[in-house]
């Protein structure tokens, strides 16, 4: 919307707040409502918002396809990696008690990384799906 000045300015103001808020939801998820899924969806929503207002190409420039696809795979790998870390440190798979000296802290750390993995995967998948749907009809046919 090149001529839609209001929307562009508002979006420019809002998007950093949305991303910040997504991070808040992610890291405050232990203490209030929130967590990996929500944060992932909100991050994806922010970038989709950007893409809606400034155009898909701009969003693709900000968030290239390669990065998104890497995110999709990396999230699952982070999650599985947490499980493997527990395995290597002498526990069972996905056993967080061994991740730190104090079992409760180990749990906390494990939950944290698992949530990060979930958020990365979810936002990557949502963004990728959006890109696929939005770019499908745009190629010259």
């Amino acid at each position: 919307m090149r001529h839609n000045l209001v929307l562009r300015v508002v979006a420019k103001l809002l998007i950093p707040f949305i991303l910040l808020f997504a991070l808040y939801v992610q890291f405050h998820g232990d203490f209030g409502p929130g967590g990996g899924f929500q944060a992932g969806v909100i991050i994806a929503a922010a970038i989709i918002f950007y893409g809606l207002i400034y155009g898909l190409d701009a969003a693709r420039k900000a968030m290239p396809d390669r990065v998104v696809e890497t995110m999709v795979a990396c999230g699952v790998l982070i999650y599985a990696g947490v499980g493997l870390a527990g395995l290597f440190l002498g526990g069972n798979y996905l056993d967080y008690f061994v991740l730190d000296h104090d079992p409760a802290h180990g749990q906390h750390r494990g939950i944290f990384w698992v949530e990060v993995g979930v958020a990365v995967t979810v936002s990557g998948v949502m963004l990728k799906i959006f890109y696929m749907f939005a770019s499908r009809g745009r190629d010259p046919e």
Partner: protein
Amino acid sequence: MNIVLDVLSWACLAGGGFFCVVGGIGLIRMPDFYTRMHAASVTETLGAGLILLGLMLQAGFTLVTAKLLLICLFIFLTSPAATHALAKAALLRGLQPLLTAMGDKPSKP
């Protein structure tokens, strides 16, 4: 002091609720799209603002108030933008205001 705050916040909440309902009734009763938009904006600014103000008075100086302020900012930033986009889209789409149907000249977008 406490009682004053309570009374103030109650007044704000009641006023906000009242304006919200007024906006809703306007949304039903108004004759065409643009006037309806006007009615809806009553809900979105005055009603929302008053209710949030009432809640803020209840909450005192905490993180909650900061969040409420953030919500307030959010509403006041986004809902006019959304309404603006809506009106522009409707006008470009060719939805005429009711006035023009009554014999005025159609206004240029």
